[in-house]
């Protein structure tokens, strides 16, 4: 039932994007998220959107699959769009519908913010779709390594993240199973008043929490039994390997930012 959710899921592949080093991808996405806020006019937003679509094309993820999986988020985007249409009151009136007026600035702002949101969601989804969770955390850990000097528990954080990522599908499966069991007992999540629907979530959440705690305990024991004692002096099985294409990605980013600055309207 939850099988359509693609958020945080990894689809193995062999495209240019798939083969990149996780460090270059993470670095790129992190900087890209900041760079998105440089856009302030049609040209820059258009550039960002075109760039994102190009990345999706190169990663060979089917567009239909991507949008189908992001449907719940698309709903949110449409919602922001409408809010802007209705509540921003600047610029010329585009449409006068008696009850309310739609202003030029509202449409512009709405579309820009939607694009910003869409681009951010698409790019991060491409990251998680093309990078296995393990590579993501490996990449994170190496990127954050310098922060060890300021006593940031980098290894522990990375471990926590990899465990969390590792258990997303497990918890999803579990939710699906419990959902089916409660549906079979006549629980109804799709009809009734909002209050009834919220109450109908309790039979899902309680068993899920119980099993998550049990799982955490089992995992802790299993790790200790196998001699886990933290990150100190721990070697790696998977070595990260920075290659020419990773440097290329960073160069592409610099070019993108330069283009954004160049196309950006005056402040």
């Amino acid at each position, binding site marked *: 039932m939850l*099988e359509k959710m693609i958020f945080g899921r990894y689809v193995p592949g062999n495209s240019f994007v798939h083969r990149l080093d996780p460090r270059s991808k993470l670095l790129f996405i992190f900087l890209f998220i900041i760079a998105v806020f440089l856009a302030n006019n049609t040209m820059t937003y258009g550039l960002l959107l075109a760039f994102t679509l190009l990345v999706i094309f190169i990663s060979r993820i089917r567009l239909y699959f991507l949008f189908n999986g992001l449907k719940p988020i698309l709903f949110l985007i449409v919602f922001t769009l409408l809010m802007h249409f209705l509540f921003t009151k600047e610029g010329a009136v585009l449409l006068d519908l008696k009850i309310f007026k739609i202003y030029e600035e509202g449409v512009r702002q709405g579309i820009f913010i939607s694009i910003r949101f869409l681009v951010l969601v698409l790019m991060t989804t491409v990251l998680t779709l093309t990078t296995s969770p393990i590579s993501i955390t490996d990449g994170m850990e190496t990127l954050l390594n310098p922060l060890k000097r300021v006593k940031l528990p980098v290894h522990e954080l990375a471990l926590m993240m990899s465990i969390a990522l590792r258990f997303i599908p497990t918890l999803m499966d579990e939710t699906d199973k419990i959902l*089916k*069991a409660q*549906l079979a*007992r*006549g*629980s109804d999540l799709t009809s009734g008043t909002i209050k009834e629907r919220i109450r109908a979530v309790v039979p899902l959440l309680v068993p899920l929490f119980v099993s998550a705690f049990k799982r955490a305990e089992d995992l802790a024991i299993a790790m200790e039994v196998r001699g886990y004692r933290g990150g100190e002096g721990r070697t790696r099985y998977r070595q990260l390997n920075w290659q020419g294409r990773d440097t290329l990605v960073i160069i592409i980013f610099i070019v993108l930012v330069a283009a954004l600055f160049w196309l950006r309207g005056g402040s």
Partner: protein
Amino acid sequence: MDISLQQVGYSYAKGTPFEKRALFEVNASIESGSYTAVIGHTGSGKSTLLLHLNGLLKPTEGVVRIGNVSITADTKAKELKEIRRNVGIVFQFPEHQLFEETVEKDIMFGPMNFGVPAEEARQRAHELIKLLGLPEDVAQKSPFDLSGGQMRRVAIAGVLAFKPSILILDEPTAGLDPRGRKEIMELFNKLHKEEGLTTILVTHSMEDAAMYADQVLVMHEGRSVIVGTPEEVFADAERLKSFRLGLPRSVAFQRDFEKLIGRPLGRLALTEGQLASSIAAALKEEGER
């Protein structure tokens, strides 16, 4: 209620890169009041099949008929709730569905959802606690304070509480000790006979299939490959082997014994009792000669 499956096919995550075909052209008919065992090795589609029997999954192809209701790919969610009232499923490890503060409330959850008044639901809960051999004082305890075996029984009570006329059991005794296993299987058998339930048991235990079922459905790689009485199904060891299934212990013993004495023992011994009596008969014959 009769159940019939016609050319039922199902794919998980249809239309995504994860699409996976789980069922192909499954045909079966299950008569009202019968006891059907579904066997097959891991990944044969047993569990997917049983989710179709109360509309938790809708077939992507073909028709599932339950009583007078047909479920196809286009059936609306509303009609499905009506089906679920009549079909109870005891899932694998059903204790994972417990959530209420007290055992009594958890058992009442199902019947209350289906519109049974609270007082009647409470009464049923107490009857079931007794029927399942749980101590009386368990009603006001938290289900999470019970032992694994007791939790299993409470969860089973939660399904029986809304009095389904079709009962689907997905390996209901997995992980229980031998005695608990026997008790629970006997209880289901007793309910099957006394309440006239239509029972469908998904199991890895050939012994349970041979002992309780009057029809056996063999699944292999998403297809229904054999449907027949236990005698028919377990008579052909070679064929079962090709589906990665074995024989019930009593039948396997019978085959070995026949090889040693060099002649068949007569009818297939589906239980240890039957096996004992056919061996006794053979010995007596031997003595008379």
